């Protein structure tokens, strides 16, 4: 691409925000677009003119970046909410498990109504026996 095209791309680049890689991609696409227009019979100056003013392209780009930033904020919000819910569920699950392991009314060591407890007690050595 000759002077007019490169000058135009330089003006657009100066107005763009956002990550370098993203800006580079837009500039590469604009460059390819001019090459296609020239291959189709336009002059480079005409192709550049049809792209619109650098300000118009940059404004459309900024609008896209704003949309992307809003989406990123929503994603982060959803992640934070998800983490909070997961933490809450984990804490609740842990507390519930603790309740099940430690009953509110512990069974007495010796329970004459239960055979096993009675048997255990019965199996205990009788001190002071024979």
């Amino acid at each position: 691409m000759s002077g007019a095209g490169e000058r135009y791309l330089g003006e657009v680049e100066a107005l763009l925000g956002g990550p370098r890689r993203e800006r580079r991609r837009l500039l590469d696409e604009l460059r390819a677009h001019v090459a296609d227009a020239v291959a189709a019979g336009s002059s480079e100056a005409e192709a550049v003119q049809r792209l619109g003013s650098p300000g118009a392209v940059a404004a459309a780009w900024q609008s896209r970046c704003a949309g992307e930033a809003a989406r990123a904020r929503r994603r982060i919000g959803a992640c934070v909410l998800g983490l909070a819910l997961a933490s809450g569920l984990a804490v609740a699950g842990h507390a519930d498990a603790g309740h099940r392991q430690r009953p509110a009314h512990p069974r007495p060591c010796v329970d004459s109504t239960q055979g096993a407890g009675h048997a255990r007690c019965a199996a205990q050595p009788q001190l002071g026996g024979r």
Partner: protein
Amino acid sequence: MPRDAFSGHLELLLLAALRGRPMHGYAIIEHVRLASNGQFDYAEGTIYPALRRLEDEGLLRSSWVEQDGRRRRVYELSRSGEQALLGRRREWERVVSGVSAVLEHRPA
């Protein structure tokens, strides 16, 4: 037709242009211009941020492809894009129908 009148529908036109076949930016713009008989003549550089926005939303996919010794970014509709096109088309038809009804309404 004023350019701004349909600027909100640029995304619909881009999705429709990509229905059925992948295209690069210049081909998309030519398609829209020819299919609309020159009614839609956008500042061509503004198409790329719009394509990118649609890609951000998961409605398009794109990749660099080498054709005729030149690299071009080729876009295609994703499955979500096909569904979005159907939905937006229905929405557009409702708008057209509503506007037409108002335009044709004559008070008794």
